[in-house]
């Protein structure tokens, strides 16, 4: 084929192989730290069944409230003599599972509602946005408690409750970004090329909202961990004998003066995991933006 003048095509320096997402993330020390914290939490959740840990529910009345470093119990024991190290691993598994699943549910539902309402506007937007407003009008925890009051306490219901409460968070953020992206020149250009609504909405607009969505999701994950732990703390989430970091915190608080490690260890785990997700979210936003590459 003929090649027309390539004056302006050849002038650009050859582009080196682009760095991977991880390499770009690595440049940001703080988010790398966040990533390490998240990986640590995920490792604890995944590895619990494979490590030579003691039975997390095994009661040992002879060694109740053993301190950190006690023989046989690296992180001591709780008020029933259960090994805290083992419970931290198994509890983290529940906490992470509940919060990740709830975030995914809220993200998918909220993103879909936000995209549709921000793109089509009109009565579609009115119906969806007013529905979202109704959800937002309830105090955050009251709504979760209402859902649990209806469905009954438990792992799955607690998860659904905090998922529902977080749908408006995603719907609002994605609606906002859709509102501005729908006016973008490349959306008009895509229409000019014959693209239909679903292609524009779920490819062009959704993929451009991805950096926003990733940051929102990771930050929301941190938030969900506190919410899941809070529900368990109140006894409305996971039911005994299964326990997560929230229930460990709740049972440890009675012995705050005599054996503080029974509550501050799960508390520290919650704090560090939430911090990790927030730092990672910020770093991912920068790393995922194609304009920040090279």
């Amino acid at each position: 084929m003929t090649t027309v003048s390539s004056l302006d095509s050849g002038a650009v320096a050859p582009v080196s192989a682009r760095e991977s997402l991880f390499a770009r993330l690595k440049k940001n020390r703080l988010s790398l730290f966040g990533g390490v914290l998240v990986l640590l939490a995920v490792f604890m959740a995944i590895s619990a069944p494979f490590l030579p840990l003691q039975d997390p529910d095994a009661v040992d009345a002879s060694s109740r409230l053993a301190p950190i470093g006690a023989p046989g119990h690296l992180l001591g024991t709780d008020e029933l003599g259960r090994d805290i190290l083992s419970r931290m691993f198994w509890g983290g598994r529940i906490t992470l599972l509940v919060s990740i699943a709830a975030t995914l549910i809220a993200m998918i539902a909220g993103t879909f509602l936000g995209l549709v309402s921000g793109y089509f506007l009109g009565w579609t937007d009115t119906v969806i946005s007013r529905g979202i407003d109704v959800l937002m009008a309830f105090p955050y925890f009251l709504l979760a408690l209402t859902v649990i009051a209806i469905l009954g306490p438990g792992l799955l219901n607690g998860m659904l409750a905090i998922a529902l409460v977080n749908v408006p968070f995603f719907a609002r953020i994605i609606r906002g970004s859709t509102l501005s992206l729908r006016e973008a020149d490349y959306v008009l250009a895509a229409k000019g090329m014959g693209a239909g609504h679903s292609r524009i909405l779920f490819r062009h607009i959704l993929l451009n909202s991805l950096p926003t969505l990733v940051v929102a999701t990771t930050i929301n994950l941190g938030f969900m961990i506190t919410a899941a732990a809070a529900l368990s703390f109140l006894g409305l989430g996971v039911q005994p004998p299964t326990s997560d970091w929230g229930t460990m915190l709740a049972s440890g608080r009675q012995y705050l003066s005599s054996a503080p490690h029974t509550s501050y260890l799960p508390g520290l785990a919650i704090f560090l995991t939430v911090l990790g997700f927030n730092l990672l979210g910020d770093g991912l936003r920068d790393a995922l933006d194609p304009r920040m590459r090279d």
Partner: protein
Amino acid sequence: MDTLMHAPKTAAKNANAPLLEVSNLSTEFATYAGTLSAVDGVSLSLQPGEVFGIVGESGSGKSVTALSIMGLIKKPGRVTGGTVRFKDEANLLDKTPAEMRKIRGGQISMIFQEPMTSLNPVFRIGWQIAEVLQIHREMTRTEAWERAIHLLDRVGIASPAKRAREFPHQLSGGMRQRVMIAMAMACAPSLLFADEPTTALDVTVQAQILDLMVQLKEEDGAAVMLITHDMGVIAEMAQKVAVMYAGVVMEEATVEELFDSPLHPYTQGLLDSIPRKKSRGQSLKAIPGIVPNLLHLPTGCRFRDRCAAAHSACALADPPLQTMPNSTRKVRCWLHHPEPPK
């Protein structure tokens, strides 16, 4: 060589039939201050393979005309009247959105003004070209991708296979406009709208892009509707020209007629405002005043406030667009009307 690119043109069987015939097209925008007519009864006709220029100041309704024909007018805008005959289609304005999507990007496509923002920043450029092919032709991803590389080569992008994997921000403005042209020409359209295709580019790149458009149009036999405010681009590219002002066509003529003997005072003003060799040392001439507010058009001729040749008839009635005797050229001015109002 290439059956896709050089598919036989259906228009060939009826050589004299216009490819596109727009009559009385009107588009209104409902604003809080009132309804304004951005396009007010525009009629145009394009022959197959022709380059038709639409020239006018900002806000004269050039782009809105093109977007109306494409069915891309957004709320609060609305096409309120007229017909658009295209090939065998009686009226594009009556098409459903789904039918228009098949035509857009396929038989009619468009190049936009801003190459910097008209490409989606998160997709590789090769994918964006391949997307057009996937929409309109039943191609697999791999076929479409290879086709996209071929198209990049065709618009003069060096090492296309490598460039196809790049993102828009890695390309210069001129290269992005080449990519836009590759997208627009991907399905060998018979009509191409080019909305200020070179306005955002450097002068040296402008000429290259215009050359490329001419070359591809010749190869594919496409007609081009070239929208610009640059008289130089019109002189270089177009065969016929329509001069638009405040939503109406003021004058329509072949490019030679228009540049040799402009009839309408507005056209004369536009041509006088081009810097020329012989006017060296003199200050540039400009048409006094600005395009009128479309909500409050003057009575009579809409150009009379700024017109040096305005006389009493101009305030009485809006002149019709009337064909000059023994010619195909048209002009909307009482100076050239046999019976101006008294």
